[in-house]
C-alpha cells in the first residue's frame, strides 16, 4: 500500500497544511453537541447516582408532595436489555439492586425545566443498605470479599521468553528464578501509578431522539459504532434503525471511547419513554466522578544483567485496578503487558499480569492504554539498574535498546522501521544531556537542577490479530467536478484526522487538497472503520483511505485517457454513466504479522513508534515544587503527514504525561472522589508547561500511508512521567518509584532516611 512510482502532481503529504476544520473553530461556529439549538419539545436529562461504593438498593422513594407530572423517570426495569455491550457484558445500563461503585447510575430524570429537574432530583431518596467496599486492588486479588466473578480477577496474561518459555507453565517461574540467580547483577523494584482523569475540556454530552426512522443520537464521541453496538444490544432495534452521529468533539483522549455509549443509552431511554428529544450534558463534577479514568497499576520487577550492563533476565508482575466493571480492561492490561519490557532486549522474560475489580468507578481507555503505567515501571527500573551499576542511565539504555533484528518479549523480530537508537541520540545531542547530567547543583542554592531521559516504543494499531478480526473499512466517493468525499468512522477529536486524511487522499488520487471533503461520521453514512483508538487512525484507516482514493483517481484517469477532456470532465462523464463511483475497501494487515493469542507470542504489532524524551527540571529545595524548564524529544513517526499536527500530538501527549507525573491526582476517601473539580484536580496551565523542543524522526513503515506513516497518538503519553522522574531524581538525589511526584510526596520522601541514592 505504499506510494507507487506514479508520483502525482500534488504534494499535500508532508506539508503542514492548515486544519480543515480550522476556520469554524477559530470563529466560534464549530458546533459541539451543546451548541445545537434546542429541538422542538426537547427535555433535559440527568442521572441519579449511587452515593455509596457498594450496597444494595432496597427502594427508591419519590416525595409525594412534589409535582411529578412533567418529569420523565427511567429505571432499570425500563431498559429492554439492561447491559452496556462491550467486552464482558457485566455492566448494567442502570443498576437495579447491586450497587458496585460510587456514582453508579440508578435512575434517570428528564424535564423541560432544568430548574425543576434539579429539584426533582432533591425529591428522590434512595434506601440503600451499604456493604463494605473492596477498594484496594491487592485486597481484591486476595479475594477477601468477592465483588466480581468468582475471584475478582477480570483478566490475566502471561508472557514468557527464553528460559521461562517452558513446555509446562508450572516450570516457568522456577526457570526464570534460576535464570535470575545465574546473573551477575540483580536488581529489584516496586513501582506504582495512580488514576488519571482525561479532563477533555468539553464534558460528555449527547442529544437523542426517536422518530419513524428509529433512534438517533448525536454526541461528543470517538467511536460512533461502539454506541451503535450498545444500542443494538440494549434496545434490540434493527441496525438500520440506529443512527449515531459524532458532533464536533472537544477532546477525548480515550475518555470518549467507550463511555459515550452509557450517556447515549441514558438519553435515548429518556427520549423513548418521554417521546421527546432529550439532551444530556454532564457538568464537570459529574464528568470527573462518573466517567472512566486511567487504571492505577502496581508493577514489581526483578532483573538480572551483566556487570557491563547487558540486560539478560526480566521477571515482572503487573497488577491493574479495573474498577467495578470490565469495560476495556482486558485490552488495557494487554497493551500494558505488551509494553512492560520497555524498548529493551531481554534474553529471558516472565511477565505475569492481572486486572482485578474494585468498588471504584470503572477504569477505561486513556491515551496510552496501559502502556504508560508499565513503561513508567520499566523506565524507573532501568534507571535503578544504572545506579546499581554506576552507569549513566542513557548509556545503559543505548546499550540495550532494541535494534533491527532484535526480538521483543513476545519473540517479535523487528525487521522494519526501528528508530530507538536514532531517537535517543538525537534527543541526547539536542538537549546537551551529557553536559547537563554531569553538572551538580551548587549545595547552597535553593534550586536544584536535574535532567533525565526516557526511551520507549509504542505499538501502532490494534494488538496482534486485532486488525485482522476487525476488518476496518473506509470509502472514497467520486463527486461532481472530480471532487472526492472520504467516508470513514474515524473521528476527528482534535488530533487532525479530517485534515490528514484529506492530505493522504489528495496525493493518492492526484487531486488538489481543496477537492477532497470529509463526511461527518454518522453510522448511517460511513462504513465501520473500527474505533478511533490505539494509534491506528492514520496508519490503518489512513492506508485504506489512500488505497480507496488511489483507486477512484485511477478510474477517473483511465476515463480521461480513453475519452479525453479535463480530469473534472472525465469524472462527470464517469458519474453520468455509472451513477455512483465509490471505492469501499477493507483493511488487510501486512501478511508477515503472525500472532498467537493463546500463548501471547509473535508479532504483537505490525510496527512500533519510537521516542526519547528528555526533561530538564528545577526543584525548589524549600518547597519541593518542580518546574519543568525545558522538554526535549525525538519521536519517530514513520512519516509526518502534517508536521505541525505531529508536533501538536507529541507536545500535547507529553504535557498530559507531565501533568500526570507532577500535579494530577484524584483524592479518594472511602471510594468517593474528594476533588471532582477543575480547581482541585490540577492540570497544567501555560505557565506550568515547559517550552517543548520537538524533533521528528522518520523511519518509514512501508505499509503506512503517505510514504510510511505510523501511529503517533499514544506514544507521547508513555515517556513524559519517567523522564520527569529521572530529572527530579537527578536534582534531589533520592529515588522516586511512585506517582505522582507532588511536592507533598517529595517532601515526605525527603524525610525518609535511607532514601538517598
Amino acid at each position, binding site marked *: 500500500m505504499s506510494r507507487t512510482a506514479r508520483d502525482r502532481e500534488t504534494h499535500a503529504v508532508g506539508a503542514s497544511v492548515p486544519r480543515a476544520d480550522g476556520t469554524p473553530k477559530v470563529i466560534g461556529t464549530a458546533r459541539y453537541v451543546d451548541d445545537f439549538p434546542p429541538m422542538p419539545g426537547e427535555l433535559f436529562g440527568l442521572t441519579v447516582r449511587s452515593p455509596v461504593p457498594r450496597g444494595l438498593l432496597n427502594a427508591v422513594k419519590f416525595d409525594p408532595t412534589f409535582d411529578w407530572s412533567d418529569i420523565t423517570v427511567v429505571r432499570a426495569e425500563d431498559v429492554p436489555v439492561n447491559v452496556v455491550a462491550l467486552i464482558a457484558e457485566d455492566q448494567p445500563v442502570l443498576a437495579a439492586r447491586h450497587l458496585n461503585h460510587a456514582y453508579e447510575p440508578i435512575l434517570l430524570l428528564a424535564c423541560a425545566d432544568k430548574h425543576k429537574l434539579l429539584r426533582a432530583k432533591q425529591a428522590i431518596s434512595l434506601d440503600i443498605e451499604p456493604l463494605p467496599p473492596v477498594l484496594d486492588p491487592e485486597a481484591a486479588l486476595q479475594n477477601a470479599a468477592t465483588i466480581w466473578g468468582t475471584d475478582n480477577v477480570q483478566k490475566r496474561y502471561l508472557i514468557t521468553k527464553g528460559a521461562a518459555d517452558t513446555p509446562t507453565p508450572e516450570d516457568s517461574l522456577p526457570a526464570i528464578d534460576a535464570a535470575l540467580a545465574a546473573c551477575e547483577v540483580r536488581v529489584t523494584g516496586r513501582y506504582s501509578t495512580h488514576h488519571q482523569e482525561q479532563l477533555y475540556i468539553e464534558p460528555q454530552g449527547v442529544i437523542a431522539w426517536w422518530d419513524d426512522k428509529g433512534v438517533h443520537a448525536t454526541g461528543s464521541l470517538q467511536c460512533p459504532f461502539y454506541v451503535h453496538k450498545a444500542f443494538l444490544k440494549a434496545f434490540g432495534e434493527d441496525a438500520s434503525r440506529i443512527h449515531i452521529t459524532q458532533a464536533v468533539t472537544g477532546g477525548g483522549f480515550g475518555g470518549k471511547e467507550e463511555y459515550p455509549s452509557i450517556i447515549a443509552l441514558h438519553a435515548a431511554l429518556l427520549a423513548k419513554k418521554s417521546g421527546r428529544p432529550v439532551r444530556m450534558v454532564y457538568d464537570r463534577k459529574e464528568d470527573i466522578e462518573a466517567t472512566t479514568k486511567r487504571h492505577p497499576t502496581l508493577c514489581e520487577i526483578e532483573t538480572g544483567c551483566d556487570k557491563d550492563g547487558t540486560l539478560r533476565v526480566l521477571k515482572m508482575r503487573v497488577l491493574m485496578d479495573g474498577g467495578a466493571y470490565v469495560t476495556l480492561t482486558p485490552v488495557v492490561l494487554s497493551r500494558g503487558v505488551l509494553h512492560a519490557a520497555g524498548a529493551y532486549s531481554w534474553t529471558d522474560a516472565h511477565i505475569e499480569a492481572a486486572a482485578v475489580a474494585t468498588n471504584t468507578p470503572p477504569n477505561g481507555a486513556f491515551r496510552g492504554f496501559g502502556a504508560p503505567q508499565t513503561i513508567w515501571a520499566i523506565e524507573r527500573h532501568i534507571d535503578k539498574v544504572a545506579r546499581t551499576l554506576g552507569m549513566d542511565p542513557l548509556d545503559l539504555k543505548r546499550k540495550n535498546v532494541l535494534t533491527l533484528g532484535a526480538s521483543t518479549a513476545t519473540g517479535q523480530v523487528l525487521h522494519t522501521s526501528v528508530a530507538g537508537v536514532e531517537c535517543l541520540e538525537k534527543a541526547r545531542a539536542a538537549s546537551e544531556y551529557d553536559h547537563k547530567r554531569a553538572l551538580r547543583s551548587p549545595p547552597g542554592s535553593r534550586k536544584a537542577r536535574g535532567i533525565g531521559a526516557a526511551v520507549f516504543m509504542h505499538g501502532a494499531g490494534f494488538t496482534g490479530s486485532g486488525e485482522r478480526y476487525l476488518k476496518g473499512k473506509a470509502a472514497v466517493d467520486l463527486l461532481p467536478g472530480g471532487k472526492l468525499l472520504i467516508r470513514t468512522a474515524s473521528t476527528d477529536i482534535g488530533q487532525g484526522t479530517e485534515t490528514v486524511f484529506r492530505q493522504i487522499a489528495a496525493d493518492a488520487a492526484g487531486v488538489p487538497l481543496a477537492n477532497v471533503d470529509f463526511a461527518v461520521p454518522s453510522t448511517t453514512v460511513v462504513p465501520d472503520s473500527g474505533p478511533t483508538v490505539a494509534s491506528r487512525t492514520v496508519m490503518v484507516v489512513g492506508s485504506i483511505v489512500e488505497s480507496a482514493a488511489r483507486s477512484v483517481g485511477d478510474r477517473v484517469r483511465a476515463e480521461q485517457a480513453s475519452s479525453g477532456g479535463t480530469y473534472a470532465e472525465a469524472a462527470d462523464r464517469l458519474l453520468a454513466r455509472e451513477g455512483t463511483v465509490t471505492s469501499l475497501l477493507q483493511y488487510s494487515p501486512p501478511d508477515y504479522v503472525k500472532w498467537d493469542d493463546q500463548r501471547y507470542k509473535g508479532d504483537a504489532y505490525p510496527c512500533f513508534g519510537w521516542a526519547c524524551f528528555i526533561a530538564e527540571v528545577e526543584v525548589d529545595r*524549600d518547597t519541593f515544587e518542580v518546574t519543568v524548564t525545558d522538554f526535549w524529544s525525538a519521536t519517530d513517526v514513520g512519516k509526518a503527514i502534517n508536521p505541525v499536527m505531529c508536533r501538536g500530538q507529541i507536545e500535547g501527549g507529553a504535557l498530559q504525561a507531565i501533568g500526570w507525573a507532577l500535579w494530577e491526582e484524584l483524592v479518594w476517601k472511602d471510594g468517593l472522589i474528594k476533588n471532582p473539580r477543575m480547581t482541585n484536580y*490540577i492540570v497544567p496551565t501555560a505557565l506550568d508547561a515547559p517550552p517543548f523542543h520537538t524533533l521528528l524522526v522518520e523511519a518509514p513503515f512501508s505499509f503506512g500511508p503517505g510514504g510510511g506513516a505510523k501511529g503517533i497518538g499514544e506514544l507521547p503519553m508513555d515517556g513524559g512521567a519517567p523522564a520527569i522522574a529521572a530529572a527530579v531524581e537527578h536534582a534531589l538525589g533520592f529515588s522516586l518509584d511512585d506517582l505522582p511526584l507532588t511536592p507533598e510526596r517529595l517532601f515526605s520522601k525527603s524525610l525518609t532516611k535511607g532514601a538517598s541514592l
Partner: protein
Amino acid sequence: MSIADLAHHSMWRPATLPELLTRLAERHAKTQSTILLAGGTDWVVEQELSPPHSDPAKLPLLADISRLEELRGIELTGSTLRIGAAATYLEMRRHPHIGQGDKRAALLARMAQDLGALQIQARGTLGGNLATGSPAADGVAALMAYDTTVVLQSTRGERKVPITAYQTGYKRSVREGDEVITAFEIDLPARYSWYWRKVGTRRAQSISKVALAAVAVVDSGKLTRVGLGMASVAPVTAPLQNTRTLLLSTPIADLTRDSLAAAVRSDCAPIDDVRSTREYREHCARVVVHDFCRQLGAPV
C-alpha cells in the same frame, strides 16, 4: 448545575453608596439577607456547587456593587494609599502606585499577579476577598502585611477596623449586616522591603497551600516595622503575631532558624485537605518565613 437557581434571584444595582446603605439598613432591620456582589469570582462558584434552593422565592437579594463609584478608586494621599473595596486586581496591577509607575505598593501587584489568572484579576476585588472569608485569601494576606485599616460604612456612620481585628473566626467577621466594606487604607512606609511567596497548586489558577506576604522597615540592623500575613495555615488569615514579636524584638543578625521555626509553629494550625497536607503546610510556613528573613540578611 444548581446554577439554574441563579436566574431566580433579584438583582438591584444601587446608583450611589447612600442608596446602598439605606436599603441595606432597611433590609437588615427586617432580617432580610442581601448579597453584596462585586466580581462574583467566589460567590457564583458557590452557587454552582450548592444544591438548588427549595423555595426560589426566599433567595437573597443580589446587590451589584461592582460599579459603585464610591467603592472603586485607588488614591495616594501623602503616605496613605486608599484602595476602594471594589477595585479589581487588574486595576491594581495597572495602577501607577501599585503595579506600574513608582510601584510604592508593589507587594499588592505581585500578589495580584499570582491570583487566579487575568480573567479572575479583571473581576476579583480586595473587598470580596476579605468579605468571603476564605483562609486561603491571598489578598487578605497582603493587606495584613501592610497593617491595613478596613473602612466600613453604614447609615450609622463610618468605622475603621485594623485588618487583624476584622476576622473573628472561620468565615466570621466584625461586619454587621447593614455594613459595607468601602475601602482599605494603607500607611505606606517611605522605604521598606516586601516579600511575597505563594506556594500554590500550580503557577496560575491556583489556590494557595501556603502564601506569605510581608512588609518590613529596617533601621540599623533592626526591624522597626513588620507586617505579616499568611494564607491557608489557620481558620483565618494568619498575622503570625508571635513571629512578628520575635522579629521586632531581635536584631536581624541574631535571628536563628530554630527561634523562627518555633514562632511560626506557634502561629499556625494548618489542616489536611484535598489540596495539601498539614505536615507540608507546616513545613512551607517555616521555609517561607526563613526565606523572607534570609532576604533581610538574617543568618538562617
